[in-house]
């Protein structure tokens, strides 16, 4: 529970650990840490400002926590292992940020897409092998009962895997469709979205460029989808209502990006954000105290019955 709430405030964590002049709070880390992260161009591991560095680092961590959380509860779901693609994607980007390798070939989108494909095939193979073994054992029972064997690979399963694999590309989607300091790539069809969003020179819906907008929007959408997925699959979990807090916070961030076309704060703890937090917490507490949690053995039996019904 504490982890959940702590993680939900990660995108705002930079507020807590920086001084007003941008340096780290002394209570947290000794002076000199920020300076030690400066590279030869006086940047923080390639980022223009320390708080921007923290913002993206913590969002990646936020995504990784959500993907692990969803993975841990989706025990009976066919797409469970696909979620590891999201975990791997977020973990890899954390590595790139901390090792200052963002400007190297390691951050090349085609390299990451090939790895996504490779890891995806391996994970799908593991899923198929696991299901095949499990169903082989049940074959005798099914033959006796006269029911037809279930298909392991159905259109629904393939679609869910493809959808989650697509979501795992969100943290670098901006790299796929745009080039740094150049703009949209030639192969991308012109749909007029960029023109519609461009309001002036260095003003694309409040951001300095279309690429920055895409990065910020897609990392937030990735987090939103994964936290919402965790919330949906956290059946019979006591903490389920509290997942509304991070889901609400991510939705707030997306709303700020999409609905406010001028320049705006992305993580300022203002009145609207506090409202989201307070309502999320009140909802969580209300549902928590109404939740007459079932004993563990009953939870497991109900979960397995529900899963069996879904598979039919």
């Amino acid at each position, binding site marked *: *529970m*504490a982890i959940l*709430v*702590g993680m*939900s*405030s990660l995108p*705002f964590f*930079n*507020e*807590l650990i*920086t001084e*007003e*002049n*941008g340096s780290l709070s002394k209570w947290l880390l000794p002076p000199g840490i920020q300076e030690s992260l400066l590279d030869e161009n006086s*940047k923080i591991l*390639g*980022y*223009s*400002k320390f*708080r*921007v*560095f923290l*913002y*993206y680092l913590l969002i990646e961590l936020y995504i990784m926590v959500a993907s692990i959380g969803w993975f841990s509860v989706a025990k009976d779901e066919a797409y469970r292992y696909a979620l590891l693609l999201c975990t791997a994607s977020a973990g890899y980007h954390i590595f790139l940020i901390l090792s200052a390798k963002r400007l190297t070939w390691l951050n090349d989108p085609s390299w990451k897409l090939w790895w996504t494909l490779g890891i995806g095939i391996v994970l799908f193979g593991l899923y198929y092998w696991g299901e095949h073994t499990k169903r082989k054992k049940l074959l005798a029972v099914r033959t006796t009962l006269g029911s037809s064997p279930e298909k392991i690979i159905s259109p629904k399963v393939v679609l869910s895997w493809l959808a989650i694999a697509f979501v795992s590309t969100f943290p670098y989607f*901006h*790299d796929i469709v745009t080039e*740094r*300091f150049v703009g949209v790539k030639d192969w991308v069809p012109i749909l007029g979205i960029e023109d519609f969003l461009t309001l002036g020179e*260095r*003003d694309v*819906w*409040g*951001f*300095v*460029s279309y*690429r*920055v907008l895409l*990065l*910020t929007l897609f990392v937030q959408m990735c987090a939103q989808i994964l936290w919402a997925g965790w919330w949906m699959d956290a059946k019979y979990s006591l903490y389920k209502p509290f997942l509304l*807090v991070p889901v609400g916070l991510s939705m707030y961030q997306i709303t700020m*990006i999409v609905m406010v076309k001028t*320049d*705006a*704060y*992305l*993580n*300022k*703890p203002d009145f609207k*954000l*506090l409202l989201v*937090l*307070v309502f999320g*917490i009140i909802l*969580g*507490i209300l549902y*928590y*105290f109404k939740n007459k949690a079932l004993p563990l053995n009953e939870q497991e039996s109900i979960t397995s019955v529900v899963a069996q019904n879904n598979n039919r």
Partner: protein
Amino acid sequence: MIIKRLLFAAVFILAVSTNISCEKEDVTETELEVLSVKKSEIEEGDT
């Protein structure tokens, strides 16, 4: 059970208080602006 419930309540009060810590009286609007990331603040090189 009561301890567990008190613990949950404490955790949420902590979560809220940390998020509103910048709203204390001696922090002005200008200082809040300095602490937060703005859309226009993110450079192309940060992507």
